[in-house]
């Protein structure tokens, strides 16, 4: 399902990251980075909550808006708890969303729908993830050093917010495609790229069909967090199944970190990975007019440890948004 938006713009964004992102190649594009993963809080969960609030405050300050008409957001923790606690400190209506690592684009699509139909004047969407919080919940204790396969991805730490309204400023959000849940038929929790590539391929194909465009329409196609191996899987699968050849293509999971120097295995993952790279680096390139049209396809593995322990395959989803420079 593709929705077109007549008049929706991402006016302002804010990004806060942890130390690993700060040491990566895109550090200059983030608004703020911490050197410590606790962010002066007691626990990982509270740390994640804190940076959500801090990034929303930063967004308000940057854009000089007083009231947020509606807030949409989510994270990776159970019951999207960091988002819920963060939203409890903000006096705005709140829609909590969960779509694993594709939460960011789902948030953008939902917010745009509300703004474009005049239901609200402005909307703020946020996403966050915390490496240690996610490790604790989905994998092993943080201090446990058991070896992991090369295909493992590294959950990024940070919070990213975007303010959307009809004000013609920033980046235009032209359309969005809501993806379908695709069963990857794989059970390997250490190879999320393989789990999600199929969903990304399905959404890209559907977006192009719905809009009657070819892949060359976009200056850049960006996927969420497939990692170095998932990226190759997507390219091959798209070519084989849908006859789409990706040329100007990159994956935010491979851009956030220095893959050679940092201990991140196959690259970055987590809901905040795609917006950190997009709001920071990609928007900067777009504002310089180096890129005009970008298709952002955030991918999410809808993984649950209970279900994978029951030997079930992992479903995945991808939502796409088409971003354009204002002419």
């Amino acid at each position, binding site marked *: 399902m593709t929705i077109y938006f007549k008049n929706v713009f991402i006016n302002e964004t804010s990004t806060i990251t942890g130390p690993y992102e700060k040491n990566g190649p895109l550090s200059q594009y983030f608004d703020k980075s911490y050197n410590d993963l606790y962010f002066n809080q007691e626990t990982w969960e509270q740390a994640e909550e804190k940076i959500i609030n801090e990034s929303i405050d930063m967004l308000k300050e940057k854009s000089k808006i007083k009231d947020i008409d509606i807030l949409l957001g989510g994270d990776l923790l159970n019951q999207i708890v960091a988002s819920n606690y963060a939203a409890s400190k903000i006096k705005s209506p709140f829609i909590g969303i969960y779509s694993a690592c594709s939460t960011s684009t789902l948030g953008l699509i939902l917010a745009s729908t509300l703004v474009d139909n005049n239901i609200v004047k402005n909307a703020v969407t946020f996403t966050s993830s915390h490496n240690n919080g996610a490790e604790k919940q989905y994998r092993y*204790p943080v201090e446990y050093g058991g*070896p992991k396969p090369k295909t493992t991805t590294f959950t990024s730490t940070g919070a990213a917010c975007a303010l959307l309204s009809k004000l013609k400023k920033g980046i235009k959000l032209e359309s969005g495609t809501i993806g379908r849940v695709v069963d990857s*038929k794989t059970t390997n929790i250490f190879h999320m790229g393989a789990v999600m590539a199929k969903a990304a391929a399905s959404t890209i194909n559907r977006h192009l069909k719905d809009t009657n465009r070819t892949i060359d329409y976009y200056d850049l196609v960006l996927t969420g967090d497939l990692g170095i191996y998932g990226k190759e899987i997507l390219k091959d*699968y798209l070519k084989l199944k849908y006859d789409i050849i990706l040329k100007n293509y990159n994956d935010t999971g491979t851009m956030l970190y220095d893959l050679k120097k940092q201990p991140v295995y196959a690259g970055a993952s987590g809901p905040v990975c795609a917006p950190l790279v997009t709001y920071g680096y990609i928007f900067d390139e777009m504002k310089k007019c180096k890129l005009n049209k970008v298709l952002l396809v955030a991918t999410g593995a809808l993984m649950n440890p209970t279900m994978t322990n029951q030997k079930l395959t992992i479903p995945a989803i991808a939502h796409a948004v088409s971003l354009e420079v204002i002419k």
Partner: protein
Amino acid sequence: MKDNYQKIIDTYTPKEDILNNSIIAFITGGLMGIIGEALIEFYTFIMHIPSKEATVCMLITLIFLGCILTCLGFFDKWVNFCKCGLIIPITGFAHATQSAALEYRKEGLVTGIGTNMLKLSGAVIIYGIIGSFIFSLIRMLVGLV
């Protein structure tokens, strides 16, 4: 399409360096053995503890070291490098238990540490006991005891 997708996944899934990992684990595991043996010698000849108890003292020392190094925050990197060289010896068990205890400390002494401490290592205890029971049974039936 399932098989095709699986084929693509297999093409782009890198092989783990089994030989390299085995060599590292062999060397580091061997070093662990030397350390253990040296500790037994130390307890037997310098502390004058009977050799049977000296083995227990060696195990306790290694568990203590595994726990304390985990708490200091760098042991996970060692384990990650040495892999089975540090995981298979008692240090791996200590590391797994201690890291879980650290992780859940903030959720309370009973609901946090008490419930979750054996999250990773509980399986080792359960199947260790079952395994030793079965093998003892076999030994008894064969009449070795």
